[in-house]
């Protein structure tokens, strides 16, 4: 009886219920962004629309028609959200996957080099980290190169990699994947070095009292300790891989892939196409990172590290 008396008063406002979760706030933020976007689209496309009216000799266009026209241009400076949505729908659901205009076709191509690059980058990062943690010489000789590799603008070095590899006969998926590798090995190296070094002194001492070998200490202590660090850096590495794959498609004059879509879009002023490719890339990155997040959750649960 006292339970009911002490319970906090229930709120009957549906708004409170909606905003207590994550769905409500996210929807509100999305709505605000879309609203700002529409206003910006009207403002940015207004000048071109007025030009069009002048050339057509019309000077008494009602405001509502003016707004509608700015949001329906073929090559707007900033396409309206619904234009991008329609383009996304048309190029994914409506088109056959085999079609050259299918965004899914282009995404698959970018995805394959992203995944290959990510796989090589993660493996390379883990190997480098193992070397750096176990050898002072390797740490001193490798770490400066690892860090300076990331200070070079990727846009500058990407064409070089493509050209050099092209000259020695390596073309297709691998050169693009290597640019993904270039971007994704770094966070994994740094994260894993940190992770492999994170066991507490007392845990290392324990291994010492057991006279454990370095290999035993690695498998039984350092590696399990580094697992949470690995997943965090893999999330960053995956996003970087996708960026690398798209950048890798730019200098090759590739005919397929999200990068190629972006490039073609900018040649012909197809802003709607550019934006839909950008959204596809963002969606892809989000899904891949979420997938790693899911793997992380399952693994940590299995290891008893998440409660």
């Amino acid at each position, binding site marked *: 009886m006292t339970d009911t008396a002490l319970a906090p008063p229930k709120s009957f406002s549906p708004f409170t219920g909606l905003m207590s979760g994550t769905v409500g706030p996210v929807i509100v933020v999305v709505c605000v962004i879309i609203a700002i976007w529409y206003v910006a689209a009207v403002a940015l496309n207004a000048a071109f629309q007025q030009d069009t009216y002048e050339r057509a000799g019309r000077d008494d266009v009602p405001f509502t028609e003016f707004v509608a026209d700015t949001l329906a241009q073929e090559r707007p400076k900033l396409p309206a959200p619904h234009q991008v949505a329609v383009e996304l729908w048309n190029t994914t659901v409506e088109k056959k996957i085999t079609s050259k205009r299918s965004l899914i076709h282009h995404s698959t191509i970018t995805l394959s080099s992203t995944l290959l690059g990510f796989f090589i980058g993660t493996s390379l990062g883990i190997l480098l980290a193992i070397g750096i943690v176990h050898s002072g010489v390797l740490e001193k000789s490798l770490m400066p190169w690892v860090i300076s590799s990331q200070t070079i603008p990727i846009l500058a070095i990407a064409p070089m990699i493509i050209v050099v590899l092209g000259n020695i006969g390596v073309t297709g998926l691998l050169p693009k994947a290597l640019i993904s590798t270039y971007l994704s090995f770094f966070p994994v190296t740094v994260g894993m070095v940190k992770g492999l070094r994170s066991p507490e002194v007392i845990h290392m001492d324990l291994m010492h*009292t057991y006279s454990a070998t370095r290999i035993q200490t690695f498998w039984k202590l350092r590696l*399990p300790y580094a697992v949470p660090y690995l997943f965090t850096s893999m999330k960053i590495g995956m996003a970087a891989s996708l960026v690398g794959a798209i950048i890798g498609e730019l200098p090759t004059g590739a005919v397929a892939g999200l990068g190629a879509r972006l490039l073609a879009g900018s040649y012909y002023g197809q802003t709607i196409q550019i934006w839909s490719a950008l959204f596809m890339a963002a969606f892809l990155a989000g899904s891949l990172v979420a997938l790693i997040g899911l793997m992380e959750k399952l693994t940590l649960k299995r290891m*008893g590290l998440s409660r």
Partner: protein
Amino acid sequence: MLTAAEIEDGLDDAMNEQGKRVIDIENLSLTFQTNDGPVHALSDIDLKIDEGDFVSFIGPSGCGKTTLLRVIADLEQPTAGSITVNDVSPQEARLNRAYGYVFQAAALYPWRTIAKNVALPLEIMGLSKSEQQERIARNMDLVNLTGFEKKFPWQLSGGMQQRASIARALAVEPDLLLMDEPFGALDEIVRDHLNEQLLQLWAKTNKTVAFVTHSIPEAVFLSTKIVVLCPRPGRIYDVIESDLPRDRNLDIRETPEFLKIAHRVRDGLRAGHSYED
């Protein structure tokens, strides 16, 4: 011609015919080099521990009691003097897996279940799966943790975690147990209980125990020999041979004999701890 030291050693040996020497420390010193100059953690330590002894190291913080234990375990290197464990160097003793070490914290691996934590040293030793299973079962039973094999460390109380870490140390089946304030972080009721369990365990297995503590009742209750250390530099102030019966329970803490030893320990701690500076 026998030197005085040799005669003394001979007498020591004669007096301890029943137990062989496990730890022999002579003139041992350890100096840490720090930015503020050298720190004399241990200075001129002479100590002998025989088989079956339960020896407590007691003293204020910074007296080097943990450092001394770590030297025995080959976790620190002495800068002068000599030390043997089972008649060989601490390093060799460690490689022979002569001791089990229990740290101040349980130091269980959070991704391993309790049984898997106890199995850790056994895996490193390369024992067969069946031998591992057998030792896990036996030692978890010894510390009353049967039934908790599949639990993760965070699912256990602090006292149970520390018991699991003792089971892990015992699973190696060493003749020597080194314990560094194993019950320091536990409340008094749990500590009393574990002290009793530890004594029973020691009586059952006839192991040699070196035990670091800063609790006077704990030291007196558990030990056959109490080593009082004092700081700056870390050195032995007094060694008290306890004449309490080996078979004891917590009630012994009310007896005059117990209080007499506790009093001597307290005097030693007070005298050794200089408050002048």
